[in-house]
């Protein structure tokens, strides 16, 4: 009977998948955040605001954590018996691992890897092992060589013991096949003890049979419900201002460091763009027209100076040039209109 219900469930799931993906047309409203009265928050204000919001169910979460903490001694035993431990479940497991580190691993050699850190690589992990644990200076040609060296050292020296704690083993940087392979081989060494946490729902997809057997995982469900503060601080959310696109603050910063004439040039271009903002086929201002206008406003005296100025803008990603159908260069500011309006208003205030 159980099997049958399971089958039913399976077929339901399949149907649901096709239901979700059947029509290419998606029915959602066309409202955008732009129309929302709210301005976008940046990382700092977000952080401050969240501090004000009380954490719900603190007592229960604490109780949960205590439950998990009671497992620490068991983890130690199992680590020493050649298993590695992986934690899964909802909520950040960072504090839990930190607690484990401070309460149990105090005094023994350990390495903490912050997987959520966007610039972490396997090489940096290996480097910290070779440099700080094994006191080896010098570089290796490839991570594989480095790994070989580590394995050799650990085989020779039986007094070496290393605990490796990896927060978010499934993060963007570590989820690659090669890095997982290397980490798996590392963790299969008898005196390297690995504790890792995973969050992504599809994290187990990155391991095949061979890696799984190298990792020798013991799974522990540690649902903590605590917010992912550190982990999401690097996640560029849609709702937070993205560092990738040009923001108002960076715009003003850059322009403040420029000369008065240069600022005037940019202003001219911005005004022109705003005047044409309702025209969808507006290609931008052509260089010749722009030069003419700048000359008239006594902002430049020659073709060359304007070009130099524009190059500087381009380097700061303040403008973009596009060659039109007629071969003429058109200039555009790749910033959305509202930011541009804000910018102009602010400039007017300053002046």
């Amino acid at each position: 009977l159980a099997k049958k219900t399971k089958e039913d469930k399976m077929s339901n799931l399949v149907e649901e998948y096709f239901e979700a993906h059947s029509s290419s047309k998606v029915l959602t409203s066309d409202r955008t955040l732009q129309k929302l009265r709210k301005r976008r928050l940046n990382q700092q204000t977000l952080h401050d605001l969240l501090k004000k919001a009380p954490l719900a169910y603190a007592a229960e979460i604490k109780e949960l954590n205590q439950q998990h903490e009671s497992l620490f001694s068991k983890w130690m035993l199992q680590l020493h018996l050649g298993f590695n431990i992986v934690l899964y479940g909802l909520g950040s497991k960072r504090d839990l691992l930190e607690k484990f580190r401070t309460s149990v691993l105090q005094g023994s050699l350990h390495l903490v890897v912050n997987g959520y850190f966007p610039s972490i690589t396997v090489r940096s992990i290996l480097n910290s092992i070779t440099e700080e644990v094994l006191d080896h200076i010098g570089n290796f040609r490839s991570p594989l060589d480095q790994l070989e060296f580590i394995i050799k050292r650990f085989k020779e020296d039986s007094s070496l013991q290393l605990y490796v704690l990896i927060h978010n083993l499934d993060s963007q940087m570590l989820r690659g096949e090669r890095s997982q392979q290397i980490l798996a081989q590392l963790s299969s060494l008898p005196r390297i003890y690995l504790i890792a946490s995973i969050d992504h729902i599809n994290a187990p997809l990155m391991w095949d049979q061979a890696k799984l057997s190298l990792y020798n995982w013991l799974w522990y469900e540690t649902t903590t419900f605590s917010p992912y503060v550190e982990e999401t601080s690097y996640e560029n959310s849609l709702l937070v201002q993205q560092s990738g696109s040009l923001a108002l603050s960076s715009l003003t910063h850059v322009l403040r460091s420029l000369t008065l004439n240069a600022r005037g040039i940019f202003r001219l271009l911005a005004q022109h763009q705003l005047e044409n903002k309702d025209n969808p086929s507006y290609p931008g201002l052509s260089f010749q027209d722009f030069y003419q206008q700048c000359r008239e406003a006594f902002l430049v005296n020659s073709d060359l100076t304007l070009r130099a100025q524009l190059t500087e803008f381009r380097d700061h990603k303040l403008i973009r040039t596009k060659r039109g159908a007629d071969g003429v260069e058109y200039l555009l500011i790749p910033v959305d209109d509202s930011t541009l309006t804000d910018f102009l208003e602010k400039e007017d205030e300053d002046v």
Partner: protein
Amino acid sequence: QQIQEDLNKQLFDNLVSFLRRSHSEFQEKTKEWTCRMKSREIPTAALVLGVNVTDHDLTFRSLSEVLQNNITPYIALLEAKDCPGIKNLMQKLMGQLMNCYIEVDSLEDEDCVQVSQKRMRCSMTSLINWYESVTKKMDSKTPSKKRTSCSRHWQSPPVVVIFKDMESFITKVLQDFIVISSQHIRELPLVLIFGIATSPMIIHSLLPHSVSSLLCIELFQSLSCKEHLSTVIDKLLLTAQFPFKLGEKVLQVLINIFLYHDFSVQNFIKGFQLCIVEHFYSQPLSVLCCQLVDAKKRVNSLSHDQCENIRRLPSFRRYVESQASQKQIALLTADNFLKEIIQKLLEDLHVYHENYVSVLRCLHVFTSSLPKYPLGKQIRELYCACLENRVWETEEYESSLQLARMLNKSDLVTMLQQCVEIFVSSSGKEFDKTVEKLKEFLTQFQKLEAEAFQEQDVSVSSQKELQKKTDLYHLQKTLLELKESRRSKKLTKFEKLRFEVVDYIDSLVRNYLVPADHKTLHEIVYFNTASVLRGHLNAAPRIALHTALNNPYCYLKNQALKSDGGSISNKAPDICIVYKLHLECGRLINLVDWLEAFSTVVMAVEGPNADAASSDQVDDIIHARFIRAVSELELLGFIKPSKQKTDHVARLTWGGC
């Protein structure tokens, strides 16, 4: 812990030796073949090893050991992950060969120099040069022991290259290597060994005809992993040697993981190990789980608390309840008396196990020869069935009895005979067999056999008579006799049937009781918490996430969170609300609408007490909370930003989870 580590070691040793043995035959074949091969093409052995990649390590290691001891000192073991390009492959190969060589005779220091410069030039020619120099050296000094054994086989020993995982090699690299080495086969006698996980077809799909024609391939099949499993179970579980036992559910979980997931004996062993760890960690009375002699010593040194623990065991309670009241009081109060009883009980348990195994094997012989295998074909299935329930109450058992009654032909006699033989040998191994019943059985069977022989004799002689005397009267007479003898034969058939029934009922009712419901103190040696095991070995992170998000009450024991499945409770943590809202959407989600829905849900809680003046700030906070929850969902992989439409996110899951 100590005991348990001992046990672990014991277990591992046992396993390794077993694997060695099972492979040795296979290795012998390969070895022989390696010696024999000599042709213009590159001799290649394709080992079909099955999909359990994790177990192959051991196979290859022992294979290379055997080869090294018997045939050639030059073995290189290449793995796909080390060889992304032909250059790396050559490097690895040379490094390993030279290291191999040094390992074999560590006396010569000159070679160290060679090794240190191995990185410099790793081409085929340098390999050949090296090989020539080594072989020359070898020829020049024949007195060396190992060399003579080598050169007995061959003037120049072959260089064996093992490709561990054929499937994951890059085709180009492999082809190049084969082509290159085939050009130098005269100078460098190479032998390739491919480890294949799938089927031999893969060679032809990986290598084009022009390349595979350079190889002279011979196929070798290894044992299937199922056979491995049954032997491992046989060796580990069905012996009285190990005091630690698995409960039915746990065994079922382990076997299921094996059969439905990975076919890996290694993982099975890992699970078994975990069981041992769990058992010795969680069960305070597991100190008594050891050999009988040690256990008795330990019983004497039990503390009062431990005695209390024993009294608390459910099986022990049942035992106490079945005793006379006088004895009950003594058991519950006097520690010394308790210890004596415990010793007796432990002894009982031990005897029970010993009987159990041999009777189980006997039953297996009976049932495994029945058609359709109502009780299972493998001994592990029978074991599970016996552990699970009273086996004589199950339908399968009933049907197998019926089948045994029907099957009552002369070939059954031979089967019985064979079964008895196994039984005798096993009872011989289980040295202190406590019940004399085996012998009783034996004599019964022998009687049976003797009678059967007599029958045969009679029938044979009667047939002879039939041929001799041909007149009608005699014929009639002999026919009548035959009929009579047949009738008597029927009687013996009945006898056999009766034997069987006696046999079954006797052995089963006495020895086959389910451990949990009959034996006291079974908690000491049986590990039976399957859920723990399943959680640790075969976890389901998605389900955990889903329940945590869908029904936070499971984890946060707050009454406010208790709700009926479908509706969105506004008191749940933010991320749960956001998740529930996102479940209602299709493939794309509009962020603005999502935010608004979220704020209405959240405002429903705060609405009554929030003032209008501070609403702006509240709004901001809600916005921030929403951002946090959405980015958490993104981190968890439920959504991802989408470029299809502005300010939309795409859902990556579908349906209810």
